[in-house]
């Protein structure tokens, strides 16, 4: 029977082509959009974690209150012992200290006077320790455009765009003017060892990267740091895990009476990404609903049109004694076949586009010129196991739903009038 119905669907193309195309396009869009949203979500979380907040971040309570202003005067003191404790008590996380700082990078002429200068957003990370995780977290080697990574104290990296703007060459001196932890003016000479490009507008505009030990010396931050970042070993952020860790840490270390005691915050909390991710999740759900409902309406309409076109055929089949239930079921089987084939083709096409954008990405640098978001300039889709089935079932469901509504008309046909209708 099913074979017979499939033959009918294939041979009578006007019965199958339009619903098939509708399902295929709808499924393709769903699969692609889902993969794209997954990619954007992952990109947001990854870049914010790696360049901003870690999966969890430890600061002094006072620093945490004003963390968006990078108040290094409120830094946490006693980093060495805290890091030691963290590494022994929470070994399933990677812990690394960081100092963020702002200031002016000044390039001298032969007389030692200002030749060029620009505002700099700096980050000090552990570069010199042999087993430092920062090199892989920030992909430092891959980010170097000219020169090399700093190898000795006093060497820094600056962003390629910034270096071009200041017209500074590798090996030249750059003076950082910033503020020490005590509020004094910090003026320190560094040597530019190389230039970097992270592929993030906000970092590439005017970034400077130095070793954390060098910056502790420059900013009078002995055994102090602005932030200690923690990363899950698998680099996958799970908010529940981070929240549980935060509760445990804060219960043990945070003291309400000491504003310089350490406090832990999660990535979602610190970056306010939680709200954004919630919105994206809602958006993804809405896409599916929006997809299933209008596609069902389109397919219902297609079913109605089909019923009109097949009005005579249905009448003959009823006149020949086929029961209404059997006829209705056979139409559902037909639509299942169309839905299956359409969903399969749509999934394949959607995944194809998603895989392409996962590999090659889509450059949004021109839109990110003034952005302050820690997000890559190249947005990529991300194909996940869910992406393989996300469009398939809604596609099948929409086809079935459309046909089942349109097919109700069969039950309205009155057998007594059939002969008269068929004469016409």
């Amino acid at each position, binding site marked *: 029977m099913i074979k017979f119905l499939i033959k009918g669907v294939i041979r009578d193309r006007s019965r199958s082509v339009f619903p098939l195309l509708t399902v295929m396009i709808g499924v393709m869009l769903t699969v692609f959009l889902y993969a794209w949203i997954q990619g954007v979500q992952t990109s947001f979380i990854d870049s914010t974690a790696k360049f901003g907040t870690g999966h969890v971040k430890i600061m002094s309570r006072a620093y945490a209150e*004003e963390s968006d202003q990078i108040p290094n005067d409120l830094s946490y003191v006693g980093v060495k012992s805290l890091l030691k404790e963290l590494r022994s008590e929470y070994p399933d996380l990677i812990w690394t200290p960081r100092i963020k700082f702002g200031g*002016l990078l*000044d390039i001298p002429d032969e007389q*030692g006077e200002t030749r060029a200068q620009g505002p700099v957003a700096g980050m000090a990370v552990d570069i010199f320790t042999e087993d430092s995780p920062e090199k892989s977290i920030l992909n430092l080697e891959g980010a170097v455009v000219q020169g090399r990574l700093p190898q000795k104290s006093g060497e820094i990296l600056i962003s390629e765009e910034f270096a071009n703007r200041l017209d500074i060459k590798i090996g030249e001196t750059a003076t950082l003017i910033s503020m020490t932890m005590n509020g004094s003016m910090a003026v320190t000479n560094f040597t530019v060892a190389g230039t970097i490009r992270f592929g993030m507008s906000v970092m590439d505009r005017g970034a400077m990267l130095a070793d954390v030990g060098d910056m502790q010396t420059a900013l009078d931050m002995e055994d102090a740091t602005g932030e200690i970042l923690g990363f899950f070993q698998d680099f996958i952020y799970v908010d529940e895990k981070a929240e549980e860790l935060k509760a445990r840490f804060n219960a043990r270390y945070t003291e309400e009476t000491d504003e310089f005691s350490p406090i832990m915050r999660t990535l979602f909390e610190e970056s306010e990404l939680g709200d954004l991710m919630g919105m994206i999740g809602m958006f993804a759900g809405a896409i599916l609903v929006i997809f299933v409902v209008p596609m069902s309406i389109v397919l219902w309409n297609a079913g109605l049109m089909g019923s009109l076109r097949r009005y005579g055929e249905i009448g003959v089949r009823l006149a020949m004694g086929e029961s209404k239930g059997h006829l209705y079921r056979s139409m559902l089987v037909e639509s299942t076949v169309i839905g299956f084939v359409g969903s399969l083709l749509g999934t394949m096409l959607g995944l194809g586009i998603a895989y392409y954008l996962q590999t090659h990405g889509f450059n949004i640098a021109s839109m990110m010129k003034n952005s302050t978001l820690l997000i890559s300039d190249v947005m990529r889709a991300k194909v996940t196991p869910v992406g393989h089935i996300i469009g398939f079932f809604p596609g099948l469901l929409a086809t079935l739903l459309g046909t089942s509504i349109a097919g109700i008309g069969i039950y309205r046909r009155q057998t007594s009038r059939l002969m008269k209708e068929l004469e016409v």
Partner: protein
Amino acid sequence: MRKSSPIFAICLIFVVLVFSQEPSGDWILEQLDENIGSDNKIVLSSMIVHGRRGSRTIESKSWVQGREKSFTEYLAPPREKGTKMLKLEDQLWTYSPATDRIIKISGHMLRQSVMGSDLSYEDMMEDPRLLKMYSAEIVGEETLFERSCWVLELVSKDDDNAYHSRKIWVDKERFVALKEDRFARSGKLLKTTEIKEVTRMQDRWVPRHIIFKDVLKRGQGTEFILESIEFDAEIPEYVFTKASLRK
């Protein structure tokens, strides 16, 4: 005697009319600017910065010529000793002995705090003549620190000014602004200044103890204490050159 009586009466009425009139805001600003003076002076001062982790005292000596030129050398603490700053009109350079560099402070750096205090470089660079930058209106009279004051609201004449508006309390007798609130264009209060002590030095009323507070920063503000001031001092011209920064 009889002939001169009407003339005397008219003169008397004129004098009474003139002096009974409420002075204008601009006139008060003019008196305030005049009191600051534009002559040469050598100033020895201390700045106590009250941070959340403790307080620091920064001592400095400044040579000032008129309103356009000033040269400051920091004397203490050791971290700051030898740091020098030169202001020539609207330009500012700093010299750091540790790096032997002369660096021009410009752009966004001007908004940064000077030595961690509640004062920014922009505040330091500001022309002290308020009348040049603001139009003033008297909005009331109050008694502040037991002194009778005019309350003036100043609105910037130029978009380039660091503060869009200010509210100042001017001592009616001494023409010293005893209190000041500085506002952004949005109306947000940015900084406050309070003069705790005014002293008479060489026929002028000079603020001796001032408290600056950056409202956006936590902490108890920055105290400025004038240790000594020498008016009409002889200052050689070479002091106000970049070469003197390295000396």
